[in-house]
């Protein structure tokens, strides 16, 4: 014996009713009672966070303004550059002095050799005449 199923809720529903049924099913429902309070709390929290960030930023700006940071960086750069230049100049002066001394010694040696050759030439000339 086949069991005949009782009609489902929608078998008996007129298709024209669907619109009305959907309207009822999808009508507005009350929001949870805490929703508005939660939103307002989050708004205040966000505002506080923004204010705190702004204040922190301001404090940092007050302590370390950009112009001051720039001046410190420029001073450091100038000091390092001056040091490097001075050091380079000193080493150049030392090398120049060493070179001058070497040239003087070389000239002295050459002069001595010339004197020596001149004396030999004179001695040889005196012997011939």
């Amino acid at each position, binding site marked *: 014996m086949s069991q005949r199923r009782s009609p489902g809720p929608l078998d008996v*529903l007129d298709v024209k009713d669907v619109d009305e049924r959907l309207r009822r099913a*999808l009508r507005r*429902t*009350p929001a949870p009672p805490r929703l508005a309070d939660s*939103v307002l709390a989050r708004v205040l929290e966000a505002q506080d966070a923004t204010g705190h960030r702004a204040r922190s930023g301001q404090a940092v700006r007050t302590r370390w303004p950009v112009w001051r940071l720039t001046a410190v960086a420029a001073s450091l750069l100038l000091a390092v550059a001056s040091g490097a230049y001075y050091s380079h100049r000193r080493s150049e002066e030392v090398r120049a002095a060493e070179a001058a001394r070497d040239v003087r010694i070389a000239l002295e040696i050459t002069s001595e050799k010339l004197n020596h050759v001149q004396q030999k030439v004179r001695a040889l000339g005196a012997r011939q005449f």
Partner: protein
Amino acid sequence: MRADDVLVRAQAGDHAAFADIVREHQSMVFSLACHIVHDRAAAEDVAQEVFLELYRSLARLESGAHLTFWLRRVTSHRCIDRIRRHGRRVELTLAETHEPSVPPCAHDPLLEAHLRRLVAELPAGARAVVTLRYQEDLAPSEIALILDMPVNTVKSHMRRSMACLRAKMTRNGRQG
């Protein structure tokens, strides 16, 4: 006119006025989210995010009507994004279908819950169209503006969704 005044006061930084706006529209926003995402907790999250965004966007709103339009638009888009991001799609099992043995009366909570679940099975965009149509009683042209869709796309979503809902209703009714 009153809505415009409240908006102006909220724009001037009056927290009480903003609270009035939230209380006035919370049911609309929460219901839209609830019917589209089909999850009360997620709907509450969406509603909170929408109102926070509203607070940040107050200066751009021109009137009470603009505010309502803005809320519907942002809520719908947030819900659609959320569904697409989480891939949440309600699957209706046979066990979950309600089959009362008596014909439905004018107000049948079981049938209404069943219809809401059937709507929740629709794709995200179609779900938003059906919800805006039946919850907010909006015309296709208004829905098109809210969802950034051509009017013909809205109408085709409506036709396909209704055909799908009727087919499921008939199939569910005949199963078993």
